[in-house]
């Protein structure tokens, strides 16, 4: 079994942990920093992950709040509307992200969704930088298609940790194995019909035909996160909650 290297802030990445590939560029992910000429330091606490094929390495950790990055799917809550854009909050008590009034599928000045304070939208981060406001959009600006994004009606929002949200969004391998090690949603989905949207900012939106089912799905997700359930525990919990429904 491969051992996991845990790094503390300021620690050097051991040389034998670096990707084996001699060719190409080395890619550093979150939590790592390169100091010329040949030192790689960690900037946070986390466990080191190495992808030898892509010659990439990065740190993973559970704690911390969500930092917007371009391309992330997020669930944002409208705080107030402006002349050109809505101010939305991705995480509480941080500065707002801007959602253009026309950043929806097929929206023009006449036909655009009227959002009120407190409404939820599923959106993608289109611009994120340290110095400007984060911008989000509810359509693919290249194709003009919604691609599943837009206002979220009804349903319930559940909070999970950002790292768990990421694991939920990893998808599955070709053989159907979950990459992130989360199978709750797939397992429940075999028996119960529901709609789900996972935001990288640690929010999961669930909607179904009944309150009971929505709650059961939401509870399974939050408990799997808080209890750090493995696959076996997840399957067991799903079976139990399906019996109770």
């Amino acid at each position: 079994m491969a051992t996991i290297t845990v790094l503390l802030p300021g620690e050097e990445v051991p040389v034998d942990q670096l990707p084996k590939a001699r060719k190409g560029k080395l890619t550093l992910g979150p939590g790592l920093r390169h100091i010329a000429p040949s030192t790689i330091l960690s900037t946070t606490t986390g466990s080191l992950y190495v992808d030898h094929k892509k010659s990439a390495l990065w740190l993973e950790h559970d704690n911390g709040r969500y930092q917007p990055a371009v391309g992330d799917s997020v669930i944002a809550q409208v705080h107030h509307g402006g002349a050109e854009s809505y101010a939305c909050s991705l995480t509480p008590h941080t500065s707002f992200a801007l959602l253009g009034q026309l950043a929806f599928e097929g929206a023009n000045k006449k036909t655009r969704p009227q959002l009120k304070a407190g409404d939820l939208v599923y959106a993608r981060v289109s611009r994120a930088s340290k110095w400007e406001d984060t911008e989000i959009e509810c359509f693919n600006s290249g194709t003009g298609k919604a691609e599943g994004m837009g206002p979220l009606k009804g349903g319930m929002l559940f909070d999970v940790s950002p790292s768990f949200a990421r694991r939920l969004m990893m998808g599955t391998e070709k053989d159907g194995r979950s990459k992130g090690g989360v199978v709750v949603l797939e397992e429940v989905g075999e028996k119960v019909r529901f709609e789900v949207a996972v935001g990288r900012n640690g929010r999961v939106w669930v909607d179904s035909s009944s309150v009971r089912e929505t709650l059961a799905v939401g509870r399974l997700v939050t408990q799997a996160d808080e209890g750090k359930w493995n696959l076996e525990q997840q399957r067991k919990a799903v079976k139990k909650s399906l019996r109770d429904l």
Partner: protein
Amino acid sequence: MPREAEPSTNEQAFLLSALRENIRLDSRAFDAFRPIDLSFPGGPDEYGTAEVRIGKTRVLAKISAEVVAPYADRKFEGVFTIACELSPMGSAAFEVGRQDQSEILLSRLLEKTIRRSGALDTESLCIVAGSKCFHIRADIHVLDHDGNLMDASCLALVAALMHFRRPDVEIHGEEVTVFDVRERDPVRLAMQHQPFCVTTSYYDGGAIMLQDATLLEEQCRDGEIVISMNRFGEVCSIAKYGGTPVDGLSMLTCTNVALEKVKMLDKLVKDSLAADEKRRDAGGLMAELSAENDR
């Protein structure tokens, strides 16, 4: 001024529709509390610290005592003050150095429940009339806020007061000797009764009533009723700050439920105090070392 982030309209609507179907988001019964954990951190000589966790809400109460001169108009009484602090550690909505509405309400209610109901016998804190008395200070720190701060702080405060021991004193005329904990076993405070707060949140104009609401449930409620009483059913205060009106009958049901909860809280405090005593009384010598008089 920062405020607690408002829940989205989806969450509010879902919570209400769930409550109308008799479901709470964490699958509790309407009158059930979240699991309560009461502990007394500190070494064998440290008394008067109590930590309460109700679900994710976490409150720490610390009691301290010092010798001061009593107030000129109350020569035979000691001084008892309660200080509440909502620091940003508890929630990002709390700000340092600025009192917000909830903080004022919290400290006023604790004041009413504990101090004005005479839970602590302040006359027993007098050392020399008119010149020396004990000043008992209670500090409440909110470490984590997930609703129901009132009940948690009140529980922590009462538990800490019951756990606290003040240093023993000896009086020869005008001369007072205060003994260190290591010299003489410290003395318990004289409590006359133990009042507890029980908060009821109501929805739909009083048709739905909940005990021990979480933060989300608190943000969606129509109003709250805080009832403080002791285990004998003697009501110390009923507080309802704004919100929609409720009829008298539901107020009565509230009080009945509160009594049940107060009995539960009272038992919890007594049990935890007994367990803590056992833990501290390692060699079984406590009874021999005690300087307390039988009354």
